[in-house]
């Protein structure tokens, strides 16, 4: 795996795209060797900022040839607001690439990629890499509204088929991104699923994958304080190879997990059978 770097990266592009902002950064050390599903952690607020914690964003593109990386940012609260309003030319303190990328299958096959909202960001690079290796790619993009879809125009260039859904029906089919998924998995005889988006969506995709006994790799989004594995804030209960569950760091061991290993309904709780839960005593 590539070793992450901490760099001063110049913001060379910032443009609104639907409900999001596409930021382009000059960060050769980060672009070199980054894989789809990996993320960057950006310091926000400038020097002396009262916002201490970095904000994490999945890499949308990372081009070793140009040294540019791109992220898709949803303006949320003060940190993301500062970021999307930073003028081109701003120097940003960037750490990355962080986390583990989506694993690519050993042999060519048929992959279904499912993305919710800005969760589509890492899917384009993933789709390209899968196709380079001879796989067929079916891409499903969903969002609450058409504005919150990212990359619907680009999608046909990276995938064999594209399905678009919105909750309000403003673009594509009305409904949830998972609505037609069972049929798609069946029709395409998919042998691997990938997903990125809200936790409820990841869980639903994982359940469909389990029903068809195909592997399913999902990128989770847990609140992170450090992004580099030192603080233990970003954990979720994950079943290990030994069958035992542990509170696992999503920044270093994730953000990509095999869906069947994540204990979805226990996220945000401390299940009694997790390793070390018995030592918590009154600390629960």
């Amino acid at each position: 795996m590539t070793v992450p770097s901490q760099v001063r990266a110049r913001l060379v592009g910032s443009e609104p795209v639907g409900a999001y902002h596409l930021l382009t950064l000059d960060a050769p050390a980060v672009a070199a060797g980054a894989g789809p599903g990996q993320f960057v952690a950006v310091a926000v607020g400038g020097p002396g900022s009262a916002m201490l914690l970095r904000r994490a964003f999945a890499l949308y593109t990372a081009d070793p040839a140009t040294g540019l990386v791109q992220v898709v940012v949803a303006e949320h609260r003060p940190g993301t607001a500062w970021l999307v309003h930073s003028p081109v030319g701003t120097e940003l303190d960037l750490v990355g690439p962080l986390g583990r990328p989506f694993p690519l299958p050993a042999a060519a096959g048929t992959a279904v990629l499912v993305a919710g909202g800005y969760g589509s960001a890492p899917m384009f690079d993933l789709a390209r890499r899968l196709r380079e290796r001879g796989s067929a790619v079916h891409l499903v993009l969903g969002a609450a509204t058409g504005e919150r879809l990212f990359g619907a125009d680009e999608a046909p260039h990276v995938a064999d088929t594209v399905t678009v859904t919105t909750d309000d029906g403003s673009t594509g089919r009305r409904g949830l991104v998972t609505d037609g998924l069972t049929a798609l998995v069946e029709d395409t005889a998919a042998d691997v699923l990938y997903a990125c988006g809200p936790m409820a969506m990841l869980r639903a995709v994982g359940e469909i994958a389990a029903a068809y006994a195909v592997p399913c790799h999902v990128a989770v989004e847990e609140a992170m304080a450090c992004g580099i594995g030192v603080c233990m804030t970003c954990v979720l209960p994950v079943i290990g190879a030994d069958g035992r569950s542990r509170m696992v760091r999503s920044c270093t061991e994730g953000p990509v997990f095999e869906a069947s290993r994540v204990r979805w309904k226990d996220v945000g709780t401390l299940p009694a059978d997790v390793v070390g839960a018995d030592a918590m005593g009154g600390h629960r």
Partner: protein
Amino acid sequence: MTSLAQVGMGTTLAGVALPSPVLTASGCSAAGRELAPYLDVAELGAVVTKSVMLRPRSGRATPRMAETPSGMLNSIGLQGPGIEAFLEHDLPWLAARAARAVVSIAGGSVEEFVQLAGRLVGAPGVALLEVNISCPNVASRGQVFACDPRAAADVIAAVKDAADVPVLAKLSPDVTDIVTIAAACVQAGADGLSMINTLLGMAIDTDTLRPILAGITGGLSGPAIRPVAVRCVWQVHAALPEVPILGMGGIMTGLDALQFLLAGASAVSVGTAVFHDPSAPARVARELRDALADRGIPGVADVVGLAHRDGRR
């Protein structure tokens, strides 16, 4: 002006010589390994490791953190692999890099602290023990050791007996009079004091109308607590000028570190700043060296407690 090369960055903490006065803080750099891409752990004064307990511990449910103005709240719940895994995987990694380890230990009873200190006897690369007494004492219905001079002293005396390296007592600022607790720990044999641990805080989500943290309350850290930390170091150094202090709380820059030295600390830990800037401990050391050079101060030893002396420059 002192030239940069001439600034003496070495310091002595509780009898242990360190090449730099800047260390990591417990719980903010794991056991050092994750920082390797961003700095050379061997150049730090030492790596202060995450408080280790006897058994593996899951930590609490999430959410475990909330960002607050110039700070953050955490309620991790001392997640860790337990002392055996720590001895097998973490200490050897630091020792192989010739990095010094200050091992932080935590327990729910005096006996647990003693067992931990015992397991660490003879372990490679351990320069000091830091005793995290900001833990609930099972025997007194969860009252924190660090808030009771008697309980704090009991732990320190017992660890001191069991340990083969100097022992630092890590103090909580959530007490009426930190000097009383400090004196009790020193009386019990502490070779030095680490201060401060986080302050108990809380934040409520105004959308869900509920506490943000799963643990409800959490420890406040970062620059928001720096004035409290400097005050604690100042008060303890004034009362116990011979006692070595490892100062911490909101250090982001070399000048922040200098405040702690001036207040009486012999070395400092950089904690939350690492989340903002993973190279912070190395950067703070460089900035401190520059600040000393700019002021014509020959070395770290010349500023420890200097703010207490009469007259100013």
